[in-house]
């Protein structure tokens, strides 16, 4: 199967898919049409539960079980990365080199870190009111912590970020989500039901369990992202050696006391 034959196969397959996509596109209802049956029902039931952000209501109230599935995909992906990128026997890690950084950049990082952290928490807390939610806020909080590495150096980040604590936060977020679900069960209705009082519309306490599920997802996504980046940073900056194909293994073993 030479490279040229593969290209021909790709071209034929590509054109076939293109034709099918074009036909399908012309059968779809026109762009910007007014028939959105699911949309109207979702908006109606979100307003019935006093949740201002209908998208968060869909995510954490009407389809909360799907979000549990997505959260578990996220958890499994991070678990896989942690297992894959662990430091194997024939590798050794050294402390990362300190890097000289422009003092202005350092000062900016020390100011921008708490501000970004606060904006991330704001996005999580107002998940069921304004645009945002646990997923976006969690990623922003994790990126805020990594400003230390981006603008200063990896040693500074390692001091502030015990990876075990964030792995526990990752697991705690997932557990909190499931516990909130079973609490709905114990309250006598369905798993992941919205059993809490809905509160007054457009306030922080509105939406019943939506803000709590939002916070649980926020903690889980922040923990997962920090653990994920911790593994990548360790691999790229600290872990050396390791098997580089068959031949490299012997001399690695030799010099590894």
């Amino acid at each position, binding site marked *: 199967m030479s490279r040229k034959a593969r290209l021909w196969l790709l071209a034929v397959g590509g054109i076939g898919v293109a034709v099918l996509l074009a036909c399908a596109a012309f059968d*779809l209802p026109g762009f910007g049409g007014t028939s959105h049956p699911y*949309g109207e029902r979702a908006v109606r039931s979100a307003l019935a539960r006093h949740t201002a952000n209908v998208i968060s209501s869909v995510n954490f109230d009407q389809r909360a079980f799907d979000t549990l599935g997505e959260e578990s995909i996220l958890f499994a992906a991070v678990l896989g990365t942690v297992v894959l990128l662990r430091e194997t026997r024939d590798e050794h890690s050294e402390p990362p080199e300190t890097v000289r950084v422009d003092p202005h950049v350092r000062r900016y990082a020390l100011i921008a870190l708490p501000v970004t952290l606060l904006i991330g928490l704001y996005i999580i807390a107002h998940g069921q009111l304004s645009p945002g939610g646990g997923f976006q806020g*969690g990623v922003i909080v994790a990126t805020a912590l990594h400003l230390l590495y981006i603008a200063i150096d990896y040693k500074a980040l390692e001091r502030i970020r015990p990876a075990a604590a964030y792995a526990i936060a990752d697991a705690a977020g997932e557990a909190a989500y499931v516990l909130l679900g079973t609490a709905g069960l114990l309250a006598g209705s369905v798993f992941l039901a919205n059993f809490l009082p809905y509160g007054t519309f457009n306030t922080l306490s509105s939406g019943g369990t939506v803000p709590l599920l939002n916070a649980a997802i926020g903690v889980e996504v922040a923990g997962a992202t920090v653990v994920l980046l911790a593994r990548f940073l360790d691999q790229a900056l600290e872990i050396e050696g390791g098997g580089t*194909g068959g031949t490299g293994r012997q001399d690695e073993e030799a010099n590894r006391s």
Partner: protein
Amino acid sequence: MSVLPYLAAGWVFLVGCYGLATSRNLIHAVGCLSVCQSSTYVLLLAVGYRRGGTAPVFSDIAPGSRPVVDPVVQALVLTDVVVGATVTALLLALVIQTAKRHGTVDPDELSELRG
């Protein structure tokens, strides 16, 4: 205009597949895969759009005062973006593992290495 977004999503998907198939570097292939993923976001959100509609977020407007777009597709795409990033991370971890075990990230060279 009534078909343009769907054709654009189709084009982005096909370009992503082309890049994926002809890539000579696994990291480049992972990038092309995320391009393929973003074509699904464009298609889903284009299906949910309503001309003259606004976002179904009622923190700053009164409910029912303006037509709104479809929130269900937005909820689908929202979680998919974050999960897509984590899956990209898992794929990159596999690429690092391949580079360690076989010393190369070129898919053609890899297919010749048996075991």
